[in-house]
């Protein structure tokens, strides 16, 4: 008799231990956010909930993504990495792609706007390259529709790297490492005849290599991603509430533009930055698509690893995430051609704190292994 009671008591204790985390889950489960749109149902903000599936980054089928017929081989990626870090790509051998897209600064540069060859600031901020493999349109105004198409833009830009096709090809063709590497990648054979190896070093093959390397700069496993995949301990309650603010069309309404799964709609919006009121403002997308709506519209950036890439916005006008949220709280500053999706949001202090906590949770920490691996040469 005694024994049985003991056992039962132990069971009870065990049940309590099991129930405790359930209590936390219950709190989590009460968070439901109505999705935008008729009969769209709601998001249930609980780790692993099926309603969150659209926030899972799909595995990349890289062969499909390359506009090129050549698939992404390890050798091609390695070659791309060498090119990305090589100052030979600039006319005076002073800078590489990585001078602006710096691995430890989220593949951005920590400056409001990039710095030109002559040391003068350029017009726009250096964007992060994280998850560009998921992107469908590139640069702030979307003038390139693939990473391959974008790759040589900065090389030939007089204020960025100042080189030319002739100069670039001459330099790389007279470099023994590249002669060997290109021929090996594209023929899978060791070729030493220079006349032949030269044929493999072309604008096309250089672009392919750079793009293939860029497609490896991924961030797919933030605490947020772990939570979406089902890990109840990955996010704090404040971060989960912050995700609620982010999704809720009555509060942050951020996900309309920073849409699943990569926190971007690959679309263009004027979010009312103060600089749009400048006498001669950057018209952004309008330069590429002269439609009124596009005056002062820029591409929606992805937000994974956002903590690594301050300052923010195409003009670098927000120093911190707090500044960014303050901008949205005001519903934009320059309202001349404001996107109709910019609502007058009114977040309380708790919402703001939660939202910012959430933005940090979609970033890996600066000393994360994967950053250091990627930056190794």
């Amino acid at each position: 008799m005694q024994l049985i009671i003991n056992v039962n008591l132990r069971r009870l204790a065990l049940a309590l231990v099991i129930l405790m985390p359930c209590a936390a889950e219950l709190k989590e489960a009460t968070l439901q956010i109505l999705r935008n749109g008729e009969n769209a149902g709601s998001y249930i903000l609980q780790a692993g909930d099926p309603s969150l599936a659209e926030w899972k980054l799909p595995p990349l089928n890289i062969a499909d993504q390359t506009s090129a017929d050549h698939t992404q081989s390890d050798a091609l990626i390695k070659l791309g990495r060498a090119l990305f870090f090589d100052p030979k790509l600039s006319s005076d051998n002073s800078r590489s792609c990585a001078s602006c897209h710096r691995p430890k600064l989220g593949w951005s540069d920590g400056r409001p706007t990039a710095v030109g060859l002559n040391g003068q600031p350029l017009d726009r901020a250096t964007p992060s390259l994280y998850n560009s493999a998921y992107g469908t349109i590139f640069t702030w105004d979307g003038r390139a529709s693939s990473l391959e198409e974008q790759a040589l833009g900065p090389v030939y830009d007089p204020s960025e790297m100042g080189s030319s096709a002739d100069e670039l090809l001459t330099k790389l063709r007279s470099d023994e490492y590249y002669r060997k590497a290109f021929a090996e990648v594209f023929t899978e054979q060791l070729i030493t005849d220079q006349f032949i190896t030269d044929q493999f070093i072309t604008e096309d093959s250089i672009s392919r290599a750079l793009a293939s390397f860029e497609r490896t700069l991924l961030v797919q496993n933030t605490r947020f991603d772990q939570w979406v995949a089902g890990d109840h301990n990955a996010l704090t309650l404040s971060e989960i509430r912050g995700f609620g603010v982010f999704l809720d069309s009555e509060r942050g309404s951020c996900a309309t533009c920073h849409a699943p799964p990569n926190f971007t709609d690959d679309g263009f919006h004027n979010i009312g930055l103060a600089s749009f009121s400048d006498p001669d403002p950057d018209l952004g997308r309008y330069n590429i698509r002269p439609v009124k709506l596009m005056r002062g519209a820029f591409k929606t950036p992805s937000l994974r690893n956002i903590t690594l890439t301050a300052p923010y916005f195409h003009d670098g006008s927000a120093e911190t995430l707090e500044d960014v949220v303050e901008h949205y709280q005001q519903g934009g500053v320059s309202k001349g051609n404001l996107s109709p999706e910019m609502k007058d949001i009114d977040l309380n202090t708790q919402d703001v704190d939660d939202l910012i906590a959430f933005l940090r949770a979609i970033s890996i920490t600066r000393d994360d292994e994967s950053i250091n691996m990627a930056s190794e040469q």
Partner: protein
Amino acid sequence: MNTALKVLTTFTLWFSVGYVIADQLPNVGQKDKKFSVEKLQVNVGDTVTFTNDDPFFHNVFSLSPAATFDLGSYPQGESRDITFEEAGEVQVECAIHPSMQMTIEVTE
């Protein structure tokens, strides 16, 4: 058995004909950041209606010589019309979401 099959075939045919006709009506939906059709053929003088079925704004514009227009931006449930006056191929795009593209072939 045979009759059943005939009835079925007739119904299927009837339905698919109905479907094709409905499909040719110049009404284009905008849903999940896509136009409901990729290609549409209309006659000069026809009016095409674009209806936004997504819970956010869309736009419709074209810079093609056969028809240059910008229908602005409008929310879910609203539509915009455009009448085609000239024959030719018209590339239609949403300025907000450039992956939304379609072609309208306007014939005499």
